[in-house]
């Protein structure tokens, strides 16, 4: 069995038939139908008929859409930036622990990452609530006179989103940081730089592309949050994902939902492509 040579006979392609069919029928076809439906004509009472119109895309220029869009972009950028700001020094410290000590922390990060958004939203709503929240603890210590309700609010949404995105940011930063050349760091230390100075003048500049990539991927990830803004926020805190579901399920306007989904797809794909390009150029000039 030799690797790398191109397949010659049709029989050698057998392994590709099933994955190709599954991905084709259950991913590409739904996507294609969604593109088509975004151009269809909406009929009242929640159905649509074949057509070719840009009316749903035209609604992007209304304030209903643009307000939610701007808010989504703003809060996703803020949450992702917070995660990178805390996550980068954290990951740097993490990879310098021994492999054995890393494992329980990695297991915790993966467990938090895989938690349902419902669970995260529920947990934070309890933590920020008046009856059972953190403020009770502050009252008990004597820092606060009366327990306060901190949710729903903008801060609560930001907290929940940062919590959701944080483990993801760490897992994006983990490979480049754990592959960072230790000799480079040691050289800086030998030449007399303090640990903080080494971090600021050697580690951060070398890993700038990785930091930017983590920010962008965290941004796209946060953009997908759907339940957190509903559980921890008020309607003005709803993001584009909530709006898409709301239009599709409750307002029964599937063409408009599809148009918004296409927009979100283009934004996300462009950002992910930018990240890939960034990483490629970083690899070319070490």
């Amino acid at each position, binding site marked *: 069995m030799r690797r790398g040579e191109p397949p010659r006979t049709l029989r050698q392609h057998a392994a*590709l038939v099933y994955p190709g069919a599954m991905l084709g029928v259950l991913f590409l076809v739904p996507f294609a139908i969604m593109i088509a439906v975004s151009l269809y004509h909406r009929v009242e009472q929640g159905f649509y008929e074949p057509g070719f119109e840009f009316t749903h895309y035209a609604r992007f220029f209304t304030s209903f859409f643009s307000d939610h869009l701007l808010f989504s972009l703003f809060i996703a950028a803020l949450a992702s930036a917070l995660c990178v700001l805390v996550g980068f020094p954290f990951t740097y410290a993490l990879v310098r622990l021994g492999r054995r000590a890393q494992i329980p922390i990695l297991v915790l990060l*993966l467990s938090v990452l895989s938690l349902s958004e419902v669970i995260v939203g529920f947990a934070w709503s309890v933590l920020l609530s008046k009856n059972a*929240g953190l403020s009770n603890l502050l009252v008990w210590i004597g820092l606060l006179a009366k327990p306060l309700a901190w949710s729903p609010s903008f801060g609560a949404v930001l907290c929940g989103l940062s919590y959701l995105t944080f483990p993801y940011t760490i897992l994006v930063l983990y490979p480049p940081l754990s592959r960072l050349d230790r000799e480079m760091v040691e050289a800086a230390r030998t030449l007399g730089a303090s640990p903080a100075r080494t971090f600021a003048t050697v580690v951060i500049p070398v890993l700038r592309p990785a930091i930017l990539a983590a920010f962008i991927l965290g941004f796209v990830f946060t953009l997908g949050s759907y339940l957190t803004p509903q559980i921890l926020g008020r309607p003005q805190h709803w993001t584009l994902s909530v709006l898409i579901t709301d239009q599709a399920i409750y307002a029964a306007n599937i063409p408009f939902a599809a148009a918004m989904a296409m927009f979100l797809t283009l934004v996300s794909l462009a950002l992910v492509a930018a990240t890939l390009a960034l990483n490629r150029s970083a690899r070319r000039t070490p």
Partner: protein
Amino acid sequence: MRRAGIGLVILFLVAPLLVIAAVSVNEKKRLLFPPHGFSLSWYGAIVAESEWLDPVLRSLGIAAMAAAVAVSIALPLAYFLWRYRVFYAKALFAIGLIPFALPPVITALGYLIFWSSSGWSGTMANVVLSHGVFLVTLPLVTVSLGFEGLDPALTEAAGTMGADDLQVLRTIVLPLILPYMVSGYAFAFVISLNEYIVAFMVAGFTVETLPIKLFNSLRYGYTPVMASVTVVFVALAALIFGLVARFGDLPRLLGALGPRER
């Protein structure tokens, strides 16, 4: 200083979970923290009340089958790409990565439109197939990692000694890939168990999974079973990832170089 920083971040990660664990043992049905009294009855209620047991079992069943579907798609694709580096296999691999690079609401809406126009919708099988394809990225990444780590000398030696492709695959490649298949399965299983939006859009009104049940009951007010079932699910995720770490190389799966590659 470094340890204090790591400790603070870990506190941030576990604080909400600790509060949930604390309120889950309240004696009365009220949401109180610190808890009043101590009772494990809300854990018993998960099994005793079919209102909770049904969605839990349904979610476990869907996750078990969806993860199997995801691995069944990922394995032949990763094998083909390892064996023959041709552009259409690379393109298919890239398509397999897309669901994870996009906000999930997009894939979810695609499925909603697809299944409702196919005339077959609202069943558990729809959810299993949708999750299976949606989560294919995870086993695809882990299994490909396994293939890349294979020592070419092993397969070549077997070939020289007269084994045909199928024999090499069965006796050498698959046993070495198995840990990567298992961890890919585990990742997909846990994510499917916790996934909300795709399940909701595919069959949210007919197939009630646990996350859907949780969100619905969140809207109608609090019951301590919500807290106890959350604790069980967090513990399950930690247990599964702990097992992956115990029997596999977790740092390498997450992208650190293996000990030999350094």
